[in-house]
């Protein structure tokens, strides 16, 4: 029974939504939106579980003074502060009756703009260094394929800078197809695009196949059993 009911719900809802895709007539036309609302409601309820879990996990670490408990304290304080400011709408020009939590001038907006966003931007900025280190490893010419990758990457990198333009600017017009920017563009728009499309077709077929498996009930791994 623990598996039968979820399987039935999955199968019926999945099949109805697939059929609804081909029926524009009411009530089928709005089923997708209706189920999306159901999903949002479930996700909102689950968020209470998530928030509770966060407080429990980090609260335990703080109370037991586990290693790195200070970070947990920052997490708990940050979570509660944002929650309190958001719920009470402190500093909100329209007061607590204002429908917007993020109104300009509110404390919530201030915390978001001057604490939250810089922290997110800092993490994102780290990406540049990670790209450099990953590229360094990926472009080492260990074998023929890696060498090809290195050459192609070099052309692309060069073609996207002024150096690429300057390096082959001396070529006559009839040899335009040998200029670095031209080669870089052709690699991106022809070779890369073709490969990308092949992957996309495979992904699309995989999505259809997986969805059918889940709807029919062949794949029950998400329920823990085979």
């Amino acid at each position: 029974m623990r598996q039968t009911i979820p399987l039935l719900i999955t199968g019926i809802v999945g099949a109805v939504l697939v059929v609804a895709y081909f029926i524009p007539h009411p009530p089928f036309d709005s089923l997708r939106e209706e189920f999306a609302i159901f999903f949002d409601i479930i996700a909102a309820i689950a968020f209470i579980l998530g928030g509770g879990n966060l407080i429990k996990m980090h609260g335990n670490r703080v109370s037991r003074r586990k290693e790195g408990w200070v970070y947990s304290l920052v997490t708990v304080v940050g979570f509660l502060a944002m929650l309190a400011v958001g719920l009470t709408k402190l500093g909100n020009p329209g007061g607590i009756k204002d429908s917007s939590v993020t109104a300009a001038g509110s404390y919530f907006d201030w915390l978001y703009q001057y604490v939250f966003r810089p922290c997110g931007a800092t993490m994102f900025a780290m990406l540049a260094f990670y790209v450099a280190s990953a590229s360094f490893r990926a472009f080492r010419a260990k074998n023929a394929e890696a060498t090809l990758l290195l050459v192609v990457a070099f052309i692309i990198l060069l073609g996207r800078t002024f150096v690429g333009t300057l390096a082959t600017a001396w070529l006559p017009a009839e040899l335009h197809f040998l200029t670095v920017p031209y080669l870089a563009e052709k690699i991106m728009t022809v070779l890369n695009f073709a490969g990308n499309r092949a992957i996309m077709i495979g992904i699309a077929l995989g999505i259809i196949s997986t969805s059918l498996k889940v709807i029919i009930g062949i794949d029950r791994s998400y329920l823990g059993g085979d």
Partner: protein
Amino acid sequence: MVLTAKPLSPLHCDLESHATPQPRPSHLRSSLQLALIALALVWVPAVAAVDEAGPAAGAPAPPTNLVARDTPSDRGESITIAWTRPPEDTGPGGPVTGYRILRAAAPDGPFEPIGQASPGRSQYADRDARDGVDFYYRVEALSAGAPAASAIVGPVQARPQWLNTNQWNVFVILALLLGFNLYFIEHIKKGGKPYIRQIAGLEAVAEAVGRATEMGRPILFVPGIQDMNDIQTVAGVTLLGHIARTVAEYDSRLVVPTSRSLVMTTARETVKEAYLAAGRPESYDENSIYYVTDEQFGYVAGVNGYMVREKPATCFYLGAFFAESLILAETGNSIGAIQVAGTAQPAQLPFFVAACDYTLIGEELFAASAYLSGEPKQLGSIKGQDVGKLLSIASIVIGVLVLTAAAVTGWGPLVSIGHFVRELWSTALV
């Protein structure tokens, strides 16, 4: 002048009905009648000549062949109006500056403007038509001069349809894939032995879990940053079930930080059932599957912090990933973890390939669950997927050849076949 002349066409008739009548003293009627007869003898042929060449200087001919019909394959509340453009409509920048579409509830009006179409267009969809109500339409060609109005069409009603015939290609492909899947499932059930190529990343799962067990370090599983309504997350959580079972059998430790509450609850149930199936329910630790934050980089910071502190021996990244993919994978690389990644985000695949030991590319992520289960009915679905891929490759090759031949020869049947193949795949997989 045209407005007071004898109507020569429906256009003139229409415009006349909108003209403001001029007051004329009754005692002058008889003399005016005589004068008008005299004028008519000279003037009517002149007006007729103008009408043949165009209604007036600067005014285009009206749109003709006006047709209004219920928009097909829709949810109702829409009527499509089509017309033949006047010869003066040479597109943007030409003498016709656009078309005004007017609608009325009765043939004699009043007609209200409901929208405009650009020059060069010959169709307009009225998306504000109540179902089951009669409507009449008229289209005016606009120019620097007076608008030239078409004849009136109607009545026409909007109605919702029961079948969206525009999606026939999606239906055909879906039916074919379903058929292939079911056929191969039955075929393998009856003892057919499918050939499934080895997927290195999945073959390495047991090795990766074993390594973590030997090292006494945890195994990290990251199910992406999307919610359960994303099929990649579903595929990731499905794989989590298989991996959790292996982890339970090895009696190792699995840690699953999630960025969505719903993924956390689903992952908990999945892992719990996997531990139960492996016969080790007592080893299941609910706290090892926990929620971090919905925020992308906050989540990355939390997971990275865990990786740097706890140094998991194995990291799985299976699900939907975006800019955080490389940050996670490079951190995993820096701590020396064996890493298996899989996503259907083409833009993130190069990052995973560069930073991870094994990467499941696109469709492999979706085939992975069936591959790991080894069940005949699941393996049948992989074969069905493969045949679908073969069909798409064949369609591409045939389509390219046929369209090339059609372009060279211009032979009608080839053009039709080429269009059919193109249409079959044009919107089916987007």
